[in-house]
């Protein structure tokens, strides 16, 4: 593994000072094109030179190479969501978050492998084969944004974008020893992000440190009229907030994050990080939110239900393998049956069931009521403390294939990240040491629209 040389801030400062704005981008594009760790997807390289020529050399991200998850639209580039059903699709427009990065001088140099339609926790559900963890190639990088995490952890780029629905950036950040920041739901426009579960989806960055993550999220955040759920609240100085320190802040250690399934090495590193925060002046207490134990169950009703609706638009007519059929109904059945992979089909069926006549009340409506309860309880807890902390994942990165055969075992990888997703709260995963030679991530969750405090605490850990 190549250690990452420079942060995005250092690169941009050099370019603003007169350095060649294309040097890092060209080198990164070459490395991405070689597809290390199977972390990348096809990308039209011609676009790099055009971006360098037109780059904003005075921007906050001047000359910074960035990799995009394969579910973010960038005009003229493939956008396949690691699915056969979108083979051949080229995006006809650019996502708002990508346009905002470019306006500050960033240069898009590649696209990353992912779990098909962002459904998974290991990047093993890609139609193009699994991505591997650059720190140990026998292990998964996490998922669903595993390719983007590998791109940053492997030193190809200092910044990569992923998307979160239930932890798809925080969990791979934890597995790869980098920072993953999920802002408050609605902070970053979903315009140009292929929908999975619209009430949960949010674009989220990976970075080498919290300041870079804050900078990139700040650039992307802010109201966008093209996303009906985009927040109008002012964004603030997130990068500057990182330096605030934790003296006097109230840190709640989530009791439900200490339970069964958390590896001893993970628990030990998290306890040490909490101890460090305490030494720096934070007021540490233990907080129990029993309803969060049911978050994963609610998530695996709500997310598949929304996915079954969102993915109904993929009819297999224009893109992907065209099935032989004699009627239109047969064409849809075959095209979708051949175009979607096993996990996507499983979730579509689960969602179809949860919304079906006779069962919706027992499953979908109950899950929505649970979501409201979890949100209410987390917000109540966050009136008593400023942030909640827990492990990001109960385990370190697992071996390729270890959980691929049992869907429920794979889903349990998200058990500590889904509460903040359901509640729409900002949360970050920051490295807090190693266990068995692999990185451990600490998750910091904060109040709605209070990314600044989350970043203050995470920076003090890092």
């Amino acid at each position: 593994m190549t250690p990452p040389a420079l942060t995005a801030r250092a690169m941009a400062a050099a370019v603003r000072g007169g350095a060649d704005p294309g040097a890092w981008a060209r080198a990164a594009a070459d490395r991405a094109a070689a597809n290390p760790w199977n972390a990348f997807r096809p990308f039209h390289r011609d676009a790099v030179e055009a971006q360098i020529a037109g780059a904003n050399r005075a921007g906050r991200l001047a000359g910074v190479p960035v990799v995009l998850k394969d579910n973010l639209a960038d005009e003229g580039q493939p956008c396949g969501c690691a699915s056969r059903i979108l083979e051949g699709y080229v995006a006809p427009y650019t996502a708002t978050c990508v346009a905002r990065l470019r306006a500050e001088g960033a240069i898009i140099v590649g696209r990353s492998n992912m779990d098909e339609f962002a459904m998974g926790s290991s990047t093993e559900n890609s139609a193009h084969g699994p991505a591997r963890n650059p720190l140990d190639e026998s292990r998964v990088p996490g998922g669903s944004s595993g390719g983007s995490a590998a791109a940053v952890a492997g030193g190809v780029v200092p910044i990569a974008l992923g998307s979160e629905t239930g932890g798809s950036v925080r969990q791979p950040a934890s597995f790869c020893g980098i920072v993953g920041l999920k802002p408050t739901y609605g902070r970053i426009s979903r315009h140009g992000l292929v929908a999975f579960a619209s009430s949960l989806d949010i674009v989220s960055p990976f970075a080498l440190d919290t300041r870079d993550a804050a900078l990139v999220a700040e650039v992307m955040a802010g109201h966008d009229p093209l996303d009906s759920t985009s927040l109008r609240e002012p964004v603030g100085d997130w990068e500057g907030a990182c330096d605030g320190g934790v003296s006097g802040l109230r840190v709640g250690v989530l009791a439900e994050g200490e339970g069964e399934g958390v590896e001893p090495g993970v628990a030990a590193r998290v306890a040490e990080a909490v101890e460090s925060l305490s030494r720096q002046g934070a007021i540490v207490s233990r907080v129990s939110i029993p309803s969060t134990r049911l978050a994963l169950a609610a998530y695996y009703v709500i997310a598949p239900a929304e996915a079954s609706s969102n993915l109904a638009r993929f009819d297999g007519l224009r893109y992907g393998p065209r099935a032989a059929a004699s009627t239109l109904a047969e064409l849809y059945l075959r095209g979708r049956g051949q175009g979607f992979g096993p996990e996507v089909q499983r979730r579509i069926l689960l969602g179809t069931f949860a919304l079906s006549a006779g069962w919706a009340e027992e499953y979908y409506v109950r899950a929505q009521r649970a979501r409201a309860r979890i949100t209410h309880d987390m917000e109540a807890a966050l009136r008593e403390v400023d942030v909640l902390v827990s492990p990001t994942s109960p385990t370190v990165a697992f071996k390729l294939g270890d959980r691929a055969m049992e869907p429920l075992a794979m889903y349990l990888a998200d058990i500590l990240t889904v509460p903040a997703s359901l509640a729409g709260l900002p949360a970050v995963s920051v490295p807090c040491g190693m266990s068995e030679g692999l990185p451990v991530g600490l998750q910091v969750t904060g109040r709605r629209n209070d990314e600044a405090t989350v970043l203050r605490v995470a920076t003090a850990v890092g």
Partner: protein
Amino acid sequence: MRFDAATVQELAGLARLEVAPERATALAGELSRIVTYVEMLAALEGIDEGRPGATPRRDDVARPGSPSLVELAAGRDADVVRLPRVVETE
């Protein structure tokens, strides 16, 4: 809730997915285990109130469409999209 292959095929029909018979049997087991896990929700006293701040709405005002989306079509006739014929007429 226990699923069997017939229930899976019924759901697959609703979801417009062709599922092979042997796959339907495997899916029945997988879905049964997931749904059994999900049934722990029955233990929770849920609440009906909305999620604060979670779904801000924009004004429902029509905007001009994007012509580039129509340009994606394999074949077109002015603003009408042409697709390959799927049902042969006699």
